[in-house]
């Protein structure tokens, strides 16, 4: 090996210390289906990184590959400095994984489940005892500790799952759609706990299909059909969106929506109660004036430019790769 190559290897190893997860060309095929297609990821430690995408976009498959549960069909992965899949077993001691479906034992109580997880991770008995007591307190499970997991509510189970996933103090935590069975109030509460964990030094990777949840992440990737469509902080993504967001009001919103979506300059129009949220391509420099001059604008009572949301980002970047679909749809509508 040459000196230059050596230096390169060293710098790569050094770079790894400030990268919790790095993946290059990560791909997974199931037969003919490509579930994850050449994904590149760089995830910084001590942050919450989100995977946002619809069901079937490859979120769970990616999480499973990053935890070592699935062997990638192609690509290079390093998680906490461990190469996968070769070092998957070593990695398992340092990561926590909260599965999408509740995966603890429903016929065991809260305490029995936590004790099981503690012993399986090899915690010393006295350490396990104090750690479990601590988690029962933090996650409000103390009054439930003798209740069987199967008889608990969605929110209670979710707190138990999280407590079990972090029991062995992992440096990296994977959460696969953690709040899908939880009401909004608990979701808010749950995220507060995640920020506490990050504050204590953990790195968290969370997959979700909720926009409001994605908006809480430090950084996120938008996934669609196994491809990464966007990557950045929510603010960056909104700034770089490539579209203007307008909200219009008028008496015939359904008809206005049909007329607007037919135009090639309009990316999407979605009704929000008495308003229509319209995404206009950014090649139109003055979208408000442009819209006012359209024949369809005659009926509109109000047109206002508004701040973009993550949902707008999602719509623009997942729509972008399908211009032919949009064109066809537009033609059909026009006809």
């Amino acid at each position, binding site marked *: 090996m040459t000196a230059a190559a050596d230096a390169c290897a060293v710098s790569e190893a050094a770079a790894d210390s400030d990268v919790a997860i790095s993946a290059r060309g990560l791909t997974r095929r*199931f037969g003919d289906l490509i579930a994850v297609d050449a994904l590149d990821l760089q995830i910084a430690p001590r942050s919450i990184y989100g995977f946002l995408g619809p069901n079937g976009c490859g979120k769970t498959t990616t999480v*499973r590959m990053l*935890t*070592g*549960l*699935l*062997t990638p069909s192609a690509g290079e992965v390093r998680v906490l400095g461990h190469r996968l*899949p070769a070092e*998957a*077993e070593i990695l*398992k*001691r340092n*990561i926590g*994984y909260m*599965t999408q*479906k*509740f*995966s*603890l*034992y*429903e*016929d*065991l109580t809260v305490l*029995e489940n936590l*004790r*099981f*997880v503690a*012993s*399986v*991770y*090899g915690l010393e008995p006295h350490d396990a005892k104090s750690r479990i007591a601590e988690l029962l307190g933090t996650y409000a499970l103390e009054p439930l500790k003798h209740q069987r997991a199967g008889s608990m509510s969605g929110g209670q189970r979710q707190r138990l799952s999280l407590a*079990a996933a972090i029991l062995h103090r992992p440096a990296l935590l994977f959460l696969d759609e953690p709040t899908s069975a939880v009401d909004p109030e608990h979701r808010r509460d749950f995220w507060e706990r995640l920020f506490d964990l990050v504050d204590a030094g953990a790195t968290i990777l969370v997959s979700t299909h909720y926009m409001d949840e994605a908006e809480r992440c430090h950084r996120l990737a938008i996934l669609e059909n196994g491809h990464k469509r966007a990557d950045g902080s929510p603010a960056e993504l909104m700034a770089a969106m490539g579209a203007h967001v307008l909200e219009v009001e008028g008496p015939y919103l359904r008809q206005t929506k049909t007329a607007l979506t037919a135009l090639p300059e309009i990316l999407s129009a979605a009704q929000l109660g008495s308003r229509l949220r319209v995404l206009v391509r950014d090649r139109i420099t003055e979208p408000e004036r442009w819209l006012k001059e359209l024949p369809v604008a005659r009926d509109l009572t109000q047109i206002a430019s508004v701040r973009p949301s993550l949902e707008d980002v999602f719509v623009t970047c997942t729509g972008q790769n399908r211009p032919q679909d949009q064109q066809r749809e537009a033609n059909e509508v026009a006809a």
Partner: protein
Amino acid sequence: MKALRRILAILTKELLQLRRDRVTLAMVIMIPLIQLMLFGYAINTKVRDIPAALVDQSNSALGRVLAQTVEATQVVRFTEHYADIAAAEDAIREGRVRAAFIIPADLAQRVARSGSVRPELATPPATDRELSRPVAQWLVDASDTVIAGAIKGLRGMPLAELMREPVNRTVPTFAVALLFNPSQRTVVNIVPGLVGVILTMTMIMFTSAAIVRERERGNMEMLINTPVRPIELMIGKILPYVGIGLVQAGIILGLGHLVFAVPLYGSLLALACLTLVFIGASLSLGLVLSTIAKSQLQATQMTIFILLPSIMLSGFMFPYEGMPLAAQHIAEILPATHFIRAIRAVLLRDARLEDIQEDTLWLLGFMLIGLLLASLRFNKRLG
């Protein structure tokens, strides 16, 4: 140390789950209890009171005495009486009786002639057609060979009593000493075998569901994300059932001894070693099945696939030596064959550990290979 802690964690979890599963727990006790009682009383290879038809064409006092003498053997019971042979044949065809006894019209003559045979001559000369004619005839539904055999046993029945003569002492050609089960009670042979059959069923059933259940209930994804090693998981999963197997063996042998007076000769050490390795072999076979099965239904089907030959070919029901060579080779693969052979040796024939070491070592090897195979087959990846 950590490996031990992980095994202990799995074991504790299995015990807790088992304790919560009341039905399974009840079955652990009820299966051996009820089946022992049922089979202990029911299975009997000695056939008695076969329903038979009587066709007495002689219609004489002698005919009635002959019929009574035949019934007195307890092999058959005359439930139907017919005037002609055709009716008796119909009764056999319809399944109302398994045999028909036909007493010819010239019974008195035939008896008189056979009485003239001198007792010192065992059989009349075959050339003498008159003398070699039998007294009466049996028609038998021979589709069941055991019943046919029982009635064939009546062929040489002594008739001296019929002629009001003292019964001569028959001198057998051979002397037979019946060792180990002199009173010829079937239950003595059945009970030790039953330990093998019931343990095969429950042990394979428990573990064949063990891995599949984790998968079906969605616990697998959590479990394979922990540092637990496949071999630790396998050992932790089988250990609780070793205890259950010993309890079941204890119930069968203890009750078999108390209720059916099955002798328990042999050393306790040999019995314990043999039973332990057999339980281990059955459990590890169940684990291998569990790594193959995709659902609990499939696991149950595989269990039955193993269970049936373990009942039929292992020597539990039919003598191993009576089977064709190929079937014997197949039977040798089954742990139940080795166990049933060895436990009968220990319990009934007072065999020592060194007498059964071949079967014991075979079972031990089977267990270790099974554990290894199950651990290798168990993949900590989803794909």
